[in-house]
Each structure stands twice: as structure tokens, then as C-alpha cells.
């Protein structure tokens, strides 16, 4: 079937199989691979994205169910100032600065879940954070710094002025990548 989904601000029309899961649509068709698959059975939270502003597990949602919706993935969290500079979302900055990650595999899902929490509860207590993250499993960090990262983000709002820092070279930049995305972009917001 044909679906129309606004992903990270860009509206896309795509042809998908009825049984295509949202996570596979994002990863395989749009090449937005920051959304990870950690269990494929809605248990781990690594695939968390926002659909119409609320956090959901994209491994347990048909792409067809998201037809007509707005989807935000981890790639849509930072504000792109220019082609080479971007300003991280406070949660991204918090996870980076407070060492809220080790292997990084659960991180996008953690950030997306935390973003939903902060929308409803801008100043959560430690206990509220620990409760809110119940659907996200981290096997590395012991959660300690994840809680701190979210507390950090709660007290640091996005600064309006652009941060003109060049994006540093990432270590795997030299490797094979294929950033071509399929799915026709019909408009840009």
C-alpha cells in the first residue's frame, strides 16, 4: 500500500508491504538506522520513536498504522543549523556529557522515551525518571548516568542561538555508507 508519513519534518510518500513494520520502513527504506532493533518483541525499547508526539515502540507498529502521522526519530532531535553544523537536543547533550551511554545501542530509544517524559513532566524526580524508563533496557551503564543525563537535560533548555561548532569527524566516517534514501519527498517543512 502507499503511505504518507512526515518523518523528521519531511513528508514522504512510500510504497510498503502491508506487513512492513515501522522500524523496518525507517531503517531499510529511509535509511534512518539510528532507530535500533534490540529484541523485535516490544521488550527492550531500542526502537522507540515518536508518532504524533508520543513515544512508541516502532518494532510493534505497522508502517501502515503510521500512515498520515508525524514520526520523529533520533535523527530528528538535533537542530541542523547548516549542512555541517547542528545543535544537539538537551537530552543528547546530557547523555553525552553525563556519560549516559556506553555501547550506545539503547541510547536513541532512551533519549526518545526521555523526551516524551520531559514533555509531560519537565522536572521529574529521580524516582519518576526510573519509573518512566521501565520500557527501556540498558545492559551496560547500570542506568545511573542515564538518570543523571535526563536530570541534566531537564535543567538545560535548548539555546536559541545557533551553536556554530563544526561537527567533529566521526571515527567510522571512512567506512562504507549508503545514505541514499528511497521514498519520494513531497514537501519540506
Amino acid at each position, binding site marked *: 500500500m502507499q503511505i504518507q508519513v512526515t518523518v523528521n519534518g519531511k513528508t514522504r510518500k512510500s510504497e510498503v508491504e502491508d506487513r512492513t*513494520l515501522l522500524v523496518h520502513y525507517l531503517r531499510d527504506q529511509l535509511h534512518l538506522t539510528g532507530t535500533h*532493533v534490540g529484541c523485535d518483541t516490544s*521488550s527492550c525499547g531500542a526502537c522507540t520513536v515518536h508518532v504524533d508526539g508520543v513515544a512508541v515502540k516502532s518494532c510493534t507498529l505497522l508502517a501502515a498504522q503510521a500512515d498520515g502521522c508525524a514520526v520523529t*526519530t533520533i535523527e530528528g532531535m538535533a537542530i541542523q543549523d547548516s549542512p555541517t553544523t547542528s545543535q544537539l537536543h538537551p537530552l543528547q547533550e546530557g547523555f553525552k556529557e553525563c556519560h549516559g551511554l*556506553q555501547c*550506545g545501542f539503547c541510547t536513541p530509544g532512551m533519549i526518545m522515551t526521555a523526551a516524551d517524559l520531559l514533555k509531560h513532566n519537565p522536572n521529574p524526580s529521580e524516582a519518576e525518571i526510573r*519509573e518512566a524508563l521501565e520500557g527501556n533496557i*540498558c545492559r551496560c551503564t*547500570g542506568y545511573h548516568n542515564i538518570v543523571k543525563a535526563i536530570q541534566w537535560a531537564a535543567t538545560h533548555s535548548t539555546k536559541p542561538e545557533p551553536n556554530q561548532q563544526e561537527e567533529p569527524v566521526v571515527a567510522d566516517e571512512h*567506512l562504507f555508507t549508503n545514505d541514499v534514501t528511497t521514498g519520494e519527498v513531497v514537501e519540506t517543512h
Partner: protein
Amino acid sequence: MHNQVIGKPISRVDGRAKVTGKAKYAAEFTAPDLLHGVVVSSTITKGRITHIDTGDALALDGVVKVFTHQNRPKLAWFDMSYKDLDAPPGSPFRPLHNDRIKYNGQPVALVVAETFEQARYAASLVKIEYAQEPHETDLQHHLDTARKPASGLASLLKPPPPKARGNFDKAFTEAPVQLSTGYVHGFEHHNPMELFSSTVVYGKDGKLTIYDKTQGAPNSQFYVSQVFNIPFRDVRVVSPYVGGGFGSGLRPQYQLFLAVMAARELKQSVRVSLTRQQMFTFGHRPATVQHIDLGAQPDGTLDALRHAATAETSRFEDYIEVVVNWSGALYKAPNAQFDYNVVPLDQYTPLDMRAPGGVTGMSAIECAMDELSYKLGMDPLELRLKNYTEEDPNEKRPFSSKQLRACYQQAAERFGWTKRSPEPRSMREGHTLIGWGMATGVWDANQLPARAEAVLTVNGKLRVSSATADIGTGTYTIMTQIAADTLGLPLEDVLFRLGDTDMPLAPFQGGSLTAGTVGSAVKIVCEDLGKELLKLARKMPNSPFAKAKFDDVFFVEKQMRLKADPSVRIDLQTLVDQNGGRAIRTTATSMTNSLKQGKYTRYAHSAVFVEVQVDEDLGTVKVTRAVTAVAAGRILNPKTARSQIIGGMVWGISKALEEETVMDHRYGRFMNHNLAEYHVPVCADIHELDVLFVEEHDDVVNPLGVKGVGEIGIVGMPAAIANAIFHATGKRVHELPITLDKLM
């Protein structure tokens, strides 16, 4: 003037890539016309495949091929070829080798299709008939078949049990206070968050670029090259980011074999990802049964110690781990005996899992010491100190460094141990019983040889690389720090890269040895680069460095300076210009100093103090606070190191209270094989965790004096929790995990 960044809490250099979703793990790489493979797993435990019908699967749109043992390509004939660099003694498992089923969940077919969903559905339609044979999977029912494990190369890092000392039987019989106890641990699976995946990109020339989930890209390259008889130069394995390992990526897993086989046969790029259920169909922490006998004087002096362990292994390989040796090294009991045996069963070979053997054995001895302390009416910490040893009684040699006593003291003080009321069940608030317990942790500080390359680029920046891995530990960050410090450059001018077989060879990441092993190589290669720079400086006209030796100079602020007169200095950029504007490149190997190191026992130590709250009626347990003091040599980065320890402590909570893979032995199948029913801690399980690093200098372990922190955080934790639960409830639980039903 040195050490501007080593020892500082630097934020991870890979942080930005990971918080923006740009970090690519094995299944995030793609290729034009990529095919997707889904594995079909056996549903019986032992027997033969009598018939396979792939007709329905092949009839579906998009399905390209179904591989089974009947149509797989011819591969290397000899067992030897399937031995990866971490293979224990035996005959490695060969996927799709023949019709034999050796364990439940064994891969029996690979369905390759154009999309993942096509392959997944087709895999469910592959019909397989089996002739079943009786199987044996229950360790506790087959203890009578225990035998000594075969020894092999693996015993280099995993020594056999120490020789007996004194006369245990006599000393134990005569001891005024005796304790005989036992502990049973179940299966556990590593379950890193990333599913095992291999994306094999088939090049136009037939060369393979493999994005693999592995803790050692060179091991995957070696394995593929041997099994498929491809020259090394035609196989490149790349693994820049790894979504957790904990040991599961030490050996190539079967998705690598299957993806490479399919890509070569179909001459097309293929990705094979395992499902979470299939993450329970390869190596695991083995189930164990342990017995400990302790004989002591009334003052707590240990006269006699016996520690015996029996673990399961597969029918085809003898997996071993070091379980019983730690007891003998930690306590000076003059009469001691050790035993370690394996029981081969119809399941996959176990595989090193975070602090393999260490957390198993230390959990037992540290619970036993706790039991003994109550028999003696002695404080558990006093009992440890009473039997403290400054020399390794197993090997009769000194420790390269051992600040365990300071760990005990500092952690006890931070915890407030002196306020403990010694009687069990003596601390409570309403229904809530409160307990305080402690335990010791020990882990190896090994170093292996490694290679690294350093390049000072045309614009004066430093590029260092080594084919090691960063499974989340912080390798990218600490190697960047070491390189930056050695050549006096700011962090942002240094790029460290890893996880690529085109880079100089390094061992897999495991056993807490990367910091010392690869760190030494990085330090040495940067020093070698510094020597090259000095050569260039000496050749310059009227050079003030003309007579300088390497020991006479130091590097700081992008400059080389003379120690004797730091005002004599030269910019590194100038030296690049002196080199004709060309980059300056060196490669070096760090060797281990076996002669010196062999004279010492090299361990990291920890002391753990834990408070639990147990609901007296309902049996629920909360670890309300825990303090770990760690002596692990030099701490390169307190931020990454602390996180390693905290992560390890949470693994300890998991092992003590939650984690176990349960098998239905009638079927030989793991039943809770998903993340909903295989319980690991969630955020709400975790409360106050505190880490102290005790200062420790060690110039034996490696040139950096680091011991590694990947394992030591978990080792003492389960026993400390179990001991705290006893203190709270008066109940000694001898089987982990301690679930609420065992405390009701």
C-alpha cells in the same frame, strides 16, 4: 608537564555519534540489492534431520534460496579450520555441516529473500522432520559423569586449579570450627542489547567486506578465511561500534558463517541478523555446582580450605573457566585443595561471560566466608582481614600490587559498616527487614601483545589506529587520551580508530585486558613516532635538538621541547614541513615482559558493601545502596571507569536477584528466551551506587600501570547481596538468583 589528560574525566569521544544515531552497528550498514537471511532453528535437542521440505518457502515471492546441510557449498574439511582464535579444546560446531542435531536451537537452514519480512515468513514454512534421540541437559542429574576438562591453548589465560597444599583432610577434620556448604548457579545468557548481525558486502571482485558484531574483528577475519579458504587480503572485517558484548562476541557466531556462505554462493550482499530468541542459541555462562569446606580456629584463622566446582560443557568442546583458583589466592589457608570438572551435555559450548569463572567462584567462597563468620560469631570483614595475605599462596609469589586492605577500609568507612548490628534479623522498619553484607572481588590483570599505527598528518593532527574493539567500554576515549598525552596534543587533534582488519592486529576485547594491552601499544607507537620526530628535528640546520636523545625531550602544546631547557621548542607542524610536507607514519608492537610479569600474581581487587531491604511477608528484595572500592592500578578516565564499575555492579544485582535462563529439560529447550521473561534489571531496580577508586601503583602489569575495570565491578556483588539478605532475613539461599519465592 606530562599527563594533561590521562586520569581526567574526559567525556566519551564517541558520544556525539551515539546520541545522534550516526554510530553504525553491524546491521546498520547496507549495500545495493542487499538480501536478508533468516535462520531456521532446530526444535529438538538431539538426533538427525530425516527430511527437509523447502518447497513452500521457495514458492513465496522474493525468496531467493534456502540453504540447508543438503545443498550447502563444500567447505573446509578439517575441524581445525573451524577453530577460531578463542576456541576451547574440541571440535567446533559447524553450521549446516550434516544432518546431526547437537543442541536445541541449532541453525538448520538459512532462508534468503529480498526483504526481511519475506525471509521471516518463509523461514516459518521450512518443514523439517527429525529422528529424535534421548538427550541429557541437566547438570545436576549428571554430576556423576564429571571429568577433568581437556587442556589446550586456552589454559594460557585460564590456568588449571592450583596444586593442593598441606594436608587438607587432616586439617579439616581437626579444625575446631567446620563449615561445609554448596552453591548452585543456573545458565545465563549475555544478551547484549545489539542482536548478532553480519552484513556481508560482496565486492565486484568477489572480495568481502563484512560488518560484523564481534569483540575482535581479526578473529572473524581469521575464521572466515580458514573456513571458506579465502586469503586474508580478500576478507575485510569492520566493526566500528558494538552494541555490547560481555563475552558473547569473543567467538564468531553462526550468523557470520551463514551470511558469508550465502553471499559467496549468491554473489550478492547478504545480511543475517539473529532474533532475540536466537541470542539464546549459542554460548552462555555455564550452570555450576560448587562445594566449599572451611576449617578454622575459633579466632577465625583458616586452617583448611577446599573449593570444588563442576560446570557443564557441550559434547563437542571442553569450555573451561577459572572458578576455584581465586579462593586459594585470596586466603592463606595452609591446607587447601581445589578441583574443577566438567560434565558434557547436549547443548552449545558455554562462552566467557563478564568475569567468567571469577564471579562464579568468588560468589561461592565469599558466601561461604560469610557463613563461617556467623559460625564463629565474628564480623565478616574481620574474618577477611584475619586471613589476608600479602603473597599469593597458590603460586608462592608476591602480588604485583594489592591494595585490597585499603579497599576494605575505605569502602567500609564510606558505607558506615561499624554501625552494623551483627545479629541477623536485627534491623527492621515495619515489614521491612534490613540487611548489610560485604564481599571481596578479584580479577586478572593480563596483558597480551598488540600492534598499533600512528600517523602525524600533513596538518599536524594525530591519527592512531589498532584493530581492537570498543564494545561500549570507552576504548575510543582512553586511547585518544593516551595518544594525546604521549605526543602533547589537544584531544581534538587526535583521532583514534579501531574495529577494522585493515588496521594493525590487536587481540579481542575481553577479560579487562584492552586498556593495558592496546593502551601499551598506543603509548609505544606514539613514542616511536616521537622518536621519528626527534630524528627530523635533529636533521634541521643548526638544530638545538642536534644532540638530544629521546629521553631528553618531551611533548606538550603541539610542540617538542627540551627537558633541560623547555624554552627550546619546535612545533610538530614544523617537523611535518621538515619531512617535505609528508605525513609521518610509524607502526609498533607492544610485547609483554613475561620474565618480569611471571614473577608476580597480577590481580585487580575490590571490596563491596551492600544494604538490602527485604519485605518479610512478600520476599521482595531491594538493593538500596552499595559501595564498591576498587584497586585496579591507574585509572585512565574516572568517568568511563566509574561507569564500567557501576555497570558491573548492576550485573551483580542481576546475577544475585534476577537473571537465569531456565531450560525445560524434557525438551532440552530454554523457555524464557526473550527479554520479557529473561529478567535483567530495569531502571527502577537500581538505587544508590557508589564507587571509590583506591590509589594503586603498579609498574609490573604493563607500561601504563592499568589493570582494567571491565570485570571487577561484578565479581564481589552477588555474594555481598546474598550475604546482606542473610543478615536481613536469617535465610541462606544456596541457589542463585534469589527470587522472592526463595525468601517467603
